[in-house]
């Protein structure tokens, strides 16, 4: 009997194929990650030039003039996102409570989960069209912060439902039994035991949804519209950072383009910070 040599030969065709495929897939990874760095570096280089106190305190300059800031858009973004959060968090969290605590995965739950997936698949601009049809063209609010907030709320809902649903399901069954065992009602168990236990994961999910919503532009360009002034009320058109970037990107004036880069830097910074913090917090589990 001759022993079979199990050592792999470096020149073997199969080995070479393996090496080259490893190299190719590694190159794919590089090609995927390079754009991220390219975006981050260019936004940082172009944006940092205009970072100063005025950026946060001043209004955008008239076309052709220099200086100024994006103060109105920062406040506007905050207002519109706050409206969206106020609408979407209660609906999202309570829906998720039904899915995870009361449904027992029945037909309704399956239908709601399917609807949530479909809702997360609708293009963001369709949420804008919906808010436009329901609130703007119907004359209910006109172009306004409220219409913009409603459009963003539609987009935040699926994320909030999913993260809350997952967070609640991770909470160990034993603590529900314990609460029920000492005589608590289901609603008490949910409100005072299960939800607090899942709170940090829920907040993480909501924060990520907020960061995503703050960068959304498409649903805002014809609901919240844009305004060159300080916010004047919830029923008035309002400036947001994202729409400011869109509007100022295509104008030929240098100072406005610089503000667009600065506003982009603020948005990217927000996204980076929230994502890294979320990453950090989800690593630590309460149970």
């Amino acid at each position: 009997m001759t022993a079979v040599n199990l050592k792999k030969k470096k020149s073997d065709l199969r080995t070479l194929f393996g090496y080259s495929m490893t190299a190719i897939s590694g190159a794919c990874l590089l090609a995927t990650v390079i754009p991220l760095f390219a975006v981050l570096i260019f936004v940082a280089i172009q944006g940092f030039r205009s970072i100063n106190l005025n950026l946060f305190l001043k209004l955008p300059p008239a076309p052709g003039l220099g200086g100024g800031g994006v103060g109105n858009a920062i406040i506007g973004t905050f207002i519109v996102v706050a409206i969206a959060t106020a609408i979407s968090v209660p609906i999202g969290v309570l829906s998720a409570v039904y899915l995870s605590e009361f449904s027992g995965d029945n037909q309704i739950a399956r239908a709601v989960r399917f609807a949530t997936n479909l809702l997360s698949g609708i293009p963001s601009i369709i949420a804008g069209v919906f808010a436009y049809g329901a609130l703007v063209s119907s004359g209910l609010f006109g172009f306004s912060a409220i219409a913009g907030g409603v459009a963003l709320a539609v987009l935040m809902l699926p994320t909030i439902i999913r993260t809350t649903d997952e967070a609640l399901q991770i909470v160990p069954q034993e603590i529900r039994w314990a609460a029920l065992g000492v005589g608590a009602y289901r609603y008490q168990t949910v409100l005072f035991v299960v939800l607090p236990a899942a709170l940090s994961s829920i907040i993480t999910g909501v924060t990520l949804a907020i960061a995503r919503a703050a960068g959304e532009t498409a649903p805002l360009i014809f609901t919240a519209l844009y305004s060159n002034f300080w916010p004047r009320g919830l029923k008035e058109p309002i400036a947001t950072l994202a729409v400011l970037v869109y509007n100022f990107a295509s104008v030929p004036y240098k100072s406005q383009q610089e503000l667009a880069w600065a506003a982009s830097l603020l948005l990217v910074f927000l996204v980076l910070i929230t994502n890294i913090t979320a990453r950090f917090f989800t690593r630590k589990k309460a149970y």
Partner: protein
Amino acid sequence: MTTAPYSRTEPLASRSNLEKNLEKAFKYLTLAFAVSIGLILVAIAALIFSQSVPAIKAFGLGFVTNNTWNPVTSQYGILAIMVGTLVNSGLALLLAIPLGIGTALFLSEDFIPAKIRTVLTFMVELLAAIPSVVYGLWGIFIIIPLIKPVGMWLNEYFGWIPLFSTKPAGPGMLPASIVLAIMILPIITAIARDSLASLPPELRQASLGLGATRWETIFRVLIPAAFSGIVGGIMLALGRAMGETMAVTMIIGNSNRLSWSLLNPANTIASLLANQFAEASGMQVSALMYAGFVLIILTFIVNILAELIVNKVKAKY
């Protein structure tokens, strides 16, 4: 011993009616909110459909086969714009699929230490979190100037192919598709990676035990087993690509003419809506709603297919 153990002097307090009702009310409240998710979805479709009725009556199905979009003469058809949507997202998929699957393979097999893998995975996910409008800005000032010489070269040497038959105008289908590809890469990567990672380890061990190399295992065992998951991810990415608005709007050039050349400006349904809604009135609003309705139908079909495919995989393993 004066008291017997376990004796209770009072009976257990029975639950008051108020509390019983609270208990029920809370359950039905959450049910109502859960059902409202479905209602929101229906409301979106119903509202957009009802507002597009005037346009549907005026143009009928000819809306999707006619390619003039002219608010001045109230002539509306979205053939060129639908073709633009499909070509743009198709081209982006063509670029993103090999890159995404290659990346997913590299991140799911242990070529590099787990720690570095986690960081790289996080970075790929971060690509998806960067706002679309930032990609648009980046595309205008970085990608378009970068791609223009390539377009010139393609036109000079391959101009006889209709796809490259015009001089690049700057904004156009090619740069828009490239940026769109970058934006959908994380979806394809994440889902392909998940479906590869969720395969039972026995599959891999069995194949390696039979003497297959790592890459033979990947190509002959893992990819076929994860195939429907990967396809589902690609479908989801397609849905996202068709609806992606800002980056495409800023880069594609927004021309409603039908053209073979990828170097020409084009338009997509989402970009059309983004550009025209704020200033539209009368029949134009209805025509835009009709276009939006077409977009919803397209993305619903793609998303439902994706959902079915992905669920099939879950059922298998």
